[in-house]
């Protein structure tokens, strides 16, 4: 798999705005951003309403994902291009989610909404109409999803990559600093986890660094990529971006995203936690 199979730039998207087999999808942490404006012909997926079970903490199931994509007018053989704010955090999360349910051709817009805005490219308010499809999802690919027991079993054995900011890793902050600081969990990190913040994967404009720079980053941080790796953050969206880097850009096979992340781990009774750097 090459970088262009999973990542496209703004010029590519601009050239495919009216391509009927390319579906551009905006996924934002701020789910109202789409209503303000969006890339022409882009549809919206709401990471909370559309992708989460409305009652339990879990994802929509296979049938739910099929219903969602059918309603959005996305077919199994469409090329899906995801983009969003926050340097593609939630677009990366959706990308991982599309892969979890086995979508064939899905890509990220490099730099996401921010780069598009900073380049002063066109944004519109018109919402496109797409004919409904009969989307068929595959069973969840558990090879790319980690659960809490996987994390506990990995302590001291596998690579645990904590992609939160240094202040969240050390326990000084409980959430990214654009959010009020929650108090429901214990601060800190999983013992033996390495802190390699997601932001080290990206440039200021939100585009990904080169494969060479990324390889150097993980080697320099002492991550043995021959071992299995589990990435986590607070709720699994920033670590989905790191999963994208390791699994999709660098081609590492044994990489899982722990979507329970710190909001689950930091609330578990009796598990080991480390504080500090």
């Amino acid at each position: 798999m090459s970088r262009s199979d999973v990542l496209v730039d703004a010029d590519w998207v601009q050239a495919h705005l009216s391509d009927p087999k390319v579906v551009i999808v905006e996924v934002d942490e701020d789910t109202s951003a789409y209503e303000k404006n969006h890339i022409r012909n882009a549809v919206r997926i709401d990471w909370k309403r559309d992708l989460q079970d409305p009652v339990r903490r879990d994802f929509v199931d296979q049938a739910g994902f099929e219903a969602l994509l059918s309603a959005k007018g996305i077919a199994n053989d469409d090329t899906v291009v995801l983009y969003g704010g926050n340097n593609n955090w939630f677009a990366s999360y959706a990308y991982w989610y599309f892969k979890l349910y086995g979508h064939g051709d899905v890509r990220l817009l490099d730099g996401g909404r921010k780069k598009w805005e900073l380049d002063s490219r066109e944004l519109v308010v018109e919402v496109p109409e797409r004919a409904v499809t009969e989307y068929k999802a595959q069973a969840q690919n558990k090879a790319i999803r980690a659960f809490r027991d996987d994390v506990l079993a990995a302590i001291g054995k596998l690579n645990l990559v904590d992609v939160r900011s240094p202040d969240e890793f050390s326990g000084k902050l409980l959430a990214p600093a654009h959010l009020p600081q929650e108090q429901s969990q214990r601060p800190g990190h999983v013992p033996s986890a390495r802190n390699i913040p997601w932001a080290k994967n990206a440039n200021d404009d939100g585009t990904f660094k080169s494969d060479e720079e990324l390889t150097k980053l993980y080697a320099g941080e002492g991550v043995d990529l021959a071992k299995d790796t589990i990435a986590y953050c607070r709720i699994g969206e920033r670590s989905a971006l790191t999963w994208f880097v390791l699994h999709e850009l660098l081609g590492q096979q044994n990489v899982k995203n722990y979507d329970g992340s710190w909001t689950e781990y930091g609330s578990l009774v009796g598990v080991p936690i480390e504080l500090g750097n």
Partner: protein
Amino acid sequence: MCGAKAGGPDLAGVDVAKETIIQGSVTRNGEPVNGYVRLLDDNGDFTAEVPTSATGQFRFFARPGNWTLRALVPGATVDRTVVASLGVQTEVGIAV
């Protein structure tokens, strides 16, 4: 924008005494600018980023200490250092 409250929308529901707030606005020639503001820690590491509001405003919930704010707008990048304190809403105006 006339009548815009410093820092953006109100802080209803947030216990500001427990928060270390850094907020302000990004302007060009006195007019609000749409762009992004990044919060970098005292090692220069990324901690958070927000888009500015329609009135150019931003807000972070940080921790006490030294920070750098980096405003990214079309065609310009501007850094400002700031010292934040618990229970205080530190205001920073960034002209680009």
